[in-house]
């Protein structure tokens, strides 16, 4: 597809906005650190207070990078799902990926109550959560992929994904019903989502998986553009539908799975970011949309995180609530304004 116009200037502007958001996000928090000192500590200069440097390098910088990966990754997986399922309301979670992760975490946290003792403590460490969420989402993803090999109809896969979601949600409620209050609270806290719990080591592993998912998405650019015509046209243009579908689902799985594992379920970003991006970039060409969604998703997530910090106060709101509070009205606004959502 030829882009009719060059979006170079918009790209430059949103890259500058992204950098501004990034530094602002790092400078704001329970302790307000001046812009200049924030920049200085990022580039390794001397800062007025040594504690500021510690806060920035060990806490806020990994959190901001996490926000960038979460925002861009969820945005990409939303875009991929919307094109693959020809449905503007599809998001990364329609395949039941996040429900899978939730199930894994629910079994770990809520189930650990029945194991008891020190094993339970060991299990419910940070890494325990990551592993449980990953296993959960990978299992659901594998099931969806197995189904996608058998079932030709993409819509059927969408519905099957939703059904997996319902089944896992039901199992989670059964578990919650029997779980002790303490464990239940832990599970609920995980469900709030969190960008700030990652050490540099966690972040390294997280970024490798997420980058792999994004690389696959880039390889899917041409199939995605072809799929804009629908599967029958795509096949007539020589596209291997099964292979492309596998590539797209795998990319989404890696992105949404790893994000849910490391940052908890983050709502609405996957659905809203692609639509917001299309407001700025009037195109369906994934060659433009994928980099645009990466930048835009990062900005939105950094803004949401900055808000959730309630700068200057000691309180932090759950990030999942903020993304929903911003994301849901955005989707409603888009629907009311345009009456129909295009993708």
């Amino acid at each position, binding site marked *: *597809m030829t882009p009719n116009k060059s979006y170079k200037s918009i790209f430059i502007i949103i890259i500058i906005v992204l950098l501004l958001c990034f530094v602002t996000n790092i400078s704001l928090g329970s302790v307000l650190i001046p812009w200049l000192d924030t920049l200085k500590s990022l580039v390794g200069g001397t800062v007025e207070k040594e504690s500021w440097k510690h806060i920035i390098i060990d806490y806020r910088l990994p959190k901001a990078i996490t926000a960038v990966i979460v925002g861009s990754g969820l945005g990409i997986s939303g875009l991929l799902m919307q094109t693959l399922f*020809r449905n503007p309301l599809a998001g990364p979670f329609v395949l039941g990926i996040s429900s899978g992760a939730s199930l894994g975490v629910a079994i770990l946290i809520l189930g650990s109550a029945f194991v008891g003792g020190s094993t339970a403590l060991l299990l419910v460490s940070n890494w325990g959560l990551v592993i449980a969420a990953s296993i959960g989402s990978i299992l659901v993803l594998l099931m969806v992929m197995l189904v996608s090999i058998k079932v030709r109809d993409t819509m059927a896969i969408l519905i099957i994904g939703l059904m997996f979601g319902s089944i896992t949600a039901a199992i989670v409620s059964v578990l919650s019903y029997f779980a002790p209050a303490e464990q239940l609270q832990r599970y609920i806290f995980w469900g709030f989502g969190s960008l700030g719990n990652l050490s540099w080591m966690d972040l390294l592993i997280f970024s490798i998986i997420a980058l792999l998912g994004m690389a696959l998405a*880039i390889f899917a650019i041409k199939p995605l553009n072809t799929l804009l015509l629908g599967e*029958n046209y795509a096949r007539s*243009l020589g596209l291997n539908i099964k292979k492309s579908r596998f590539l797209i689902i795998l990319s989404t799985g890696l992105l949404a799975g790893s994000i849910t594992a490391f940052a908890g379920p983050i709502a609405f970003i996957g659905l809203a970011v692609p639509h917001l991006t299309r407001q700025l970039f009037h195109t369906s060409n994934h060659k433009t949309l994928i980099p645009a969604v990466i930048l835009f998703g990062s900005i939105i997530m950094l803004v949401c995180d900055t808000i959730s910090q309630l700068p200057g106060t000691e309180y932090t709101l759950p990030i999942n609530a903020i993304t929903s509070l911003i994301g849901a009205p955005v989707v409603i606004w888009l629907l009311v304004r345009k009456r129909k959502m295009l993708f």
Partner: protein
Amino acid sequence: MEIESPDTENQNIVLRTEDLSIGYQHKNNLEVVAADINLKLYEGELVGLVGANGIGKSTLLRTLSKVQPALRGDVFLSDKEIKTYKTSELASQLSIVLTEQIASKNLTVQELVALGRQPYTNWVGKLLEEDIEKVRKAIEVTHITELVERKCFELSDGQLQKVLIARAIAQDTPFIMLDEPTTHLDVYHKAYILKLLKRLAFETQKTILFSTHEIDFAIQLCDKMIVMNTEGFEFGRPKELIQCRAFSSLFPEDLILFDPKTGSYKVRN
């Protein structure tokens, strides 16, 4: 005055079928929709496929485009058996225009036509000089130059049909197949699209096969026609088909009658 097309022996056959049977293979029984189909479609020919609803026009088109396998016999496209084509190879031999809506109407006309070049572009779909030229020509030849900046959701049905035809032209295949390209169009645009196909077949020397219910227009415009009815199928020039009364047996005669003089159907009084 009818201009006789040059002797067909010298022209290239683009699509050929040999004793083709089409239909569906159920577990234990064979549902034959039509049998012993022998077709020879030449370069630059416009061929109309007509028949009553449910007679198997779509089944024939699907079999000719390798969407479903033949029950018996063979389809040869550019002198090669269609079942030996890979999906990617077939894309450079056969392009299609379907009745179904395209998935995303957010595409611009330019983008949609350019998607026709997908079989030839690299892994990221980059258009080279040659691709851009082919797209430009396809847009020019279908007279949609003034639409290129528009989004597909802004187009009328007739305009969209022209754009989809342009996309197939841009795919640059010797054979183009259209499934009922005139449905949903008013009578003016029906004629417009069919005349466009006629001109494209002549100017681009592509073989164009389309199914339609516009039998009278097809008789006036097609080089050859395929008539499917309950007894079998007839294939030939419209004039020959009128002579052998192929159109008269197309429908039950209780309601409408074919008038060979005007080449159209009349309601029975």
